[in-house]
């Protein structure tokens, strides 16, 4: 469904992402992990059209979408959420979601109705008439997801949607994401909360310093020495296996 080939983005002398290639098959949940500053959000920005890559291509459902503007990419079915949530603070939850519905629906009344349905699926019916600014962090994260789903996407990019949530909220979000995928939307997510990554992902990519260093099933990734080094520092993998053999 999504195919990235050799994507690179430089900011002055800083290489944010370098020759990244990956694929996300339709119907899968794929995760992208890596230490802070690895370039994950930059990659998402490139995929969703907020940044133009300096080289490389992005194709979505067989169509080259490299360099297209974000709203065009959304109309084609690829939508992203933001790491720091961006609700339409002055509007109600219903109006927020309805703006997403308008991606496919023209009529105001129909969009508002559609928003109610989406809110129902996500479990936000009670909050429909609250201003978005009145929601908790967890609520805003769910609103962000709801709004994105309302656009009728085929691929959803979730950027650290679990950040700032407690254990219960994480569990609820994991359920939600699974339900969204089961409803027919492919998911590509950036995440730091490892248990969520483990339980959700069909496949995991690891980004470090702008380059992909590993990919595979989440179980394999967790024990890959290169991944351990990326998170814990040079020589950590060796130290860990030594410590293991001494135990």
């Amino acid at each position, binding site marked *: 469904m999504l195919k990235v080939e050799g994507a690179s983005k430089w900011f002055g002398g800083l290489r944010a992402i370098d020759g990244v290639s990956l694929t996300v098959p339709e119907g899968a949940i794929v995760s992208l992990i890596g230490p802070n500053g690895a370039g994950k959000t930059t990659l998402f920005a490139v995929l*969703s059209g*907020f940044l133009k890559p300096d080289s490389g291509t992005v194709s979505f459902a067989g169509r080259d979408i490299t360099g297209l*503007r*974000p*709203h*065009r990419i*959304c*109309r084609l079915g690829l*939508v*992203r*959420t*933001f790491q720091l949530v*961006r*609700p*339409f*603070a*002055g*509007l*109600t939850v*219903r*109006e927020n979601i*309805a*703006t*997403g519905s*308008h*991606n496919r*629906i*023209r*009529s*105001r009344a129909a*969009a508002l109705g559609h928003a109610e349905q989406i809110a129902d699926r996500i479990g936000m019916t009670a909050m429909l*008439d*609250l*201003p978005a600014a009145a929601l908790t962090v967890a609520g805003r994260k769910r609103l962000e997801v709801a*709004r*994105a789903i*309302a*656009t009728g996407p085929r691929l959803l990019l979730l950027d650290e949607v679990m950040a700032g949530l407690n254990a219960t909220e994480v569990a609820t979000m994991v359920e939600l994401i699974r339900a969204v995928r089961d409803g027919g939307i492919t998911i590509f997510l950036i995440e730091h909360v490892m248990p969520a990554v483990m339980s959700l992902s069909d496949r995991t990519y690891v980004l470090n310093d702008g380059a992909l260093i590993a990919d595979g099933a989440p179980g394999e990734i967790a024990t890959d020495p290169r991944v351990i080094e990326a998170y814990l520092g040079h020589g950590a993998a060796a130290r860990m296996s030594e410590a293991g053999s001494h135990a």
Partner: protein
Amino acid sequence: MISPQFRYAGWLILVLGLVTAPLLISSGRWIEFLELTLFAAVLGQGWNILGGYGGQYSFGHALFFGTGAYLQALLQFKFGWSPWVAMWFALGGGVLVGVFVGYLSFRYGLRGSYFALITLAFAEAFHVLSRSLISVTEGGRGVSLDLNRDPDMALATLQFNFAAPFLKAYGYYYLILLMLIIACAATWWMANSRFGARLVAVRENEEAAEAIGVDAFATKMAAISLSAAITSSAGIYYVQKFLFIDPGIAYGPAKSVEALIAPIIGGLGTVLGPVIGAFFIHGVGELAKETTGLVWQDRPGLDLILFGVILVLMLAFAPRGLVGLLERAWRKLSGTRPTERDHA
């Protein structure tokens, strides 16, 4: 929160009241007052589309007023066109200027204070140009339209100073009232359409809006075009009523300020806001003149000081304007929870 039935009833009462007002008011001075107020409301509604709904505060809205006015005047003065034909070109010209300024500003991503500044700069530039390009605009002398003294030609020339008694007394009043009704209808339609939903989304968070499929640039361009059209219509009215326009009146800061005061005080991003704001301001102004006129002998500037103070007070204590205050009062009275945002 205020249920649709109440809202429609409220609007119906307001419109009926304004339409029948001349029958109840015989004093020319009050008709004059209403004309000025409705004029300010039209100007304000135009600004409201871009500033209230769109969140792009323009400090140079005189740009559109002046262009509409000058085109309306010059096409009649220089080429003898009928005002009924000229007005379409005046509207079109205003929209073109809006597209021009909007394209430059939005293409280069100007927002917030920088957008306000550039609109100011454009208004000043047009001010200087209209004063210097004498062959085109008659320069500082301004453009004076011939007064029509033939009552039979009143409608044809869209001048009511010499007309049948009813038109002579109320012609201009109904003209500006009609313009306001059209402006409010257009605003109401926009606010309840997909375009309106997208516009306020862009206002609240432009990147998030882009991410969910809103073409922010196109949306803002449409907003500035509609805003320019409504504001230009006020310019058209001005020329037909006063038969005179000059660079200072057209592009000076006075109209730019007048355009933004009513919607801010009345309530940004609501259809009722500019109307209620205009009535409040002009009403307070009249009251001030009555009570202090004897003491200060009508020295200029007093009313604007008052408006400035009200503006600052509103921004400090009631940023959502009079409409916001009314909504709060209604909620307290009826004890209802906050529901869907009032679109009136």
